[in-house]
């Protein structure tokens, strides 16, 4: 897993060779895979939430939480890299015309509220249920917000920026795929690592409870 994580770095070093569109192209290899990974994490978290509500399996709650935790970290990374990209491409740190960025801002607000919810309810089945329901709302909010942002462009930002670069060359696409695989693997590694840690914490608490 860690090896694959290292693969990301390798791909990043290799990537600029193909970048014939100047410096702005380079961050594309990080930004888009990170964004897609964040979606994958949110989707995974919602899937685990659904499994939790379906089966009432306790472990799904922790898995859902960890996936959303990862998703939020990658979502924040998306915001940062997107902001840098915006700065390089058209000289501003923030553009309401960039759908992906706006969507991630909304999602970031939403999932921050998810953590607030978790922290203000005592651990237990009630918290697991509430978190799972909210996580499901999140995954529905993604397409709805995307639609909303597209609609909003008509009045919020009259100058709409269109990104119609040339077709991606084969090697660029390959680099992109390697980056995507690398980021996904990194997320997976972080996810299982974090999950093990949280499970250990939980076992420890249980043991302490038993000894007390």
């Amino acid at each position: 897993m860690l090896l694959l994580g290292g693969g990301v770095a390798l791909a990043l070093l290799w990537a600029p060779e193909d970048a014939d569109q100047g410096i702005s192209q380079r961050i594309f290899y990080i930004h888009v895979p990170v964004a897609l990974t964040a979606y994958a994490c949110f989707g995974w978290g919602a899937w685990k939430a659904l499994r939790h509500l379906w089966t009432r399996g306790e472990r799904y709650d922790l898995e859902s939480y960890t996936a959303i935790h990862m998703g939020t970290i990658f979502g924040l990374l998306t915001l940062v890299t997107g902001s840098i990209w915006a700065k390089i491409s058209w000289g501003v740190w923030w553009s309401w015309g960039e759908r992906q960025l706006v969507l991630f801002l909304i999602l970031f607000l939403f999932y921050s509220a998810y953590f607030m919810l978790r922290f203000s309810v005592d651990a237990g089945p009630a918290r697991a249920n509430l978190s799972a329901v909210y996580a499901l709302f999140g995954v529905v909010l993604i397409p709805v917000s995307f639609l909303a942002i597209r609609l909003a462009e008509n009045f919020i930002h009259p100058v709409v920026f269109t990104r119609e670069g040339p077709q991606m060359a084969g090697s660029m696409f390959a680099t992109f795929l390697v980056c995507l695989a690398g980021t996904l693997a990194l997320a997976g590694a972080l996810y299982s690592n974090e999950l093990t840690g949280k499970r250990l914490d939980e076992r420890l608490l249980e043991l302490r409870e038993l000894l007390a």
Partner: protein
Amino acid sequence: MIRARALEKRFGSKRVLRDVELDVERGGFAVVTGPNGSGKTTLLRLCAGLAAPTSGELELGVERGRIGYLGHEALVYRELTALENLDLYGRLYRVPERRERIGMLLERFGLWDARHERAGAFSRGMLQRLALCRTLLHEPDLLLLDEPFNALDADGAALLDRELVELRGERAFLVATHDPARLAPLAPEHVALAGAK
């Protein structure tokens, strides 16, 4: 009517119930005893369907609408009168001849004169009486009573004693109490919860 095997309930890492075995037949009367925090209330809430067990089996031979649950709190709206509260529950449970039944219960539990008062203005003992009316309103087949003698004065407690004797018969009871001697005349079976530690 209730059959529980290896029942376990945890709140986060806190284990409240562990390996509980329980059988209550139709016409049975089980008393749950145990020190504070041993999970009496949790066991009753599990049986009522207000919470789901973490693991183990819990079978109820009765539908949700046929359970009468008396909790720590009265489960009534403070801003509604005694009559309005019971009327709401009567509608929710689709009690036949609602008005007559409510009137009869209010009369029996000595709340008839206070029927137009807000439940929020009731004393603790009156609230408990109202809660008993609410619990018995739909003539449930399974009664889950959590400390039913709480806050009742001597009259109220004597009244409840008589009610319990009368209600027995085909119904099943699961009663949590710290005062099992009070229920001894009903010849109950005992379920002792030692605490889950």
